[in-house]
């Protein structure tokens, strides 16, 4: 079993959720992520920080209507790692059936 592909960055549901969204969208704002994942500000921010630390997402801060807006996007390495993780998940399930 290829457990080496089970990356630590995706060890919990919240992080998996964040990455799943960023895989299919160019970017997502903090507010959008919060709404989609139904998480609190603090909780979401912590998880985003953790994923950012390993270089799987990039942060972009800009002003929209004079309000600061933070948006997130998956990096190339983040995409590759998530895909490997998904593949490992599928493999694991297939082998157990």
């Amino acid at each position, binding site marked *: 079993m290829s457990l080496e592909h089970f990356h630590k960055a995706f060890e919990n549901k919240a992080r*998996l959720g964040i990455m*799943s*969204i960023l*895989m*299919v*969208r160019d970017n997502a704002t903090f507010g*959008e992520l919060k709404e989609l994942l139904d998480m609190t500000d603090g909780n979401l921010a912590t998880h985003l920080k953790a994923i950012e630390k390993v270089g799987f997402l990039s942060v972009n801060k800009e002003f929209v209507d004079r309000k600061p807006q933070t948006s997130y996007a998956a990096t190339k390495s983040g995409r590759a790692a998530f895909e490997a993780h*998904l593949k490992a*998940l599928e493999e*694991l399930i297939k082998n157990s059936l």
Partner: protein
Amino acid sequence: MEKHLQDLKEIRQLMERSSKFLSLSGLSGIAVGIVAIVAAVFVYMRQLLVFGESYSRYFNWADRYFLIIAAIVTIVLAIILGIFFTNQKAKKNKEKLWNKLSKKLVLAMGLPLITGGFLCIALLVHGIIWPLAGITLVFYGMALINGSHYTYQDVYYLGICEVILGIIALFWVGYSLLFWAIGFGVLHIVYGARMYVKYDK
């Protein structure tokens, strides 16, 4: 193992929910279909009254204005009803009607529709009426195929059906209004009902 399976399911759901506008209502399809059938019957009645069975007379400007006004009334009614039911579903889903995804959907559908619209107007101005039913079906089908990236996959197949009907209508010109009624009327009602049962219930 159950946990991994659950994880995969949730990933799939999140991916879909965050990249597709899923508040498109089946009822919208049914309403639009009914409007289309009423419009087709209306146009057909006038044709019978004015031309009889003969088609011996050329299209004059009154005919063109009638077609343009009928088309505008039909489109406006269809859009209003379409938005109305979709808005209701969006409210139920606690999703905004006008969000990033619905904007993308409207843009993806709008470009082929506006192109087709100008083509139809140009043909109409030059007095070429016969391909209009087919062309509206073909371009509407292309718009659906293009827009399906941002909503339910079913819309893609509806688009293909509309394009095929449109092409048949272009060759089988005598029955093009009938094909128009089938494409915009019957197909919308059938698909709307199917989507309503599948997603809205």
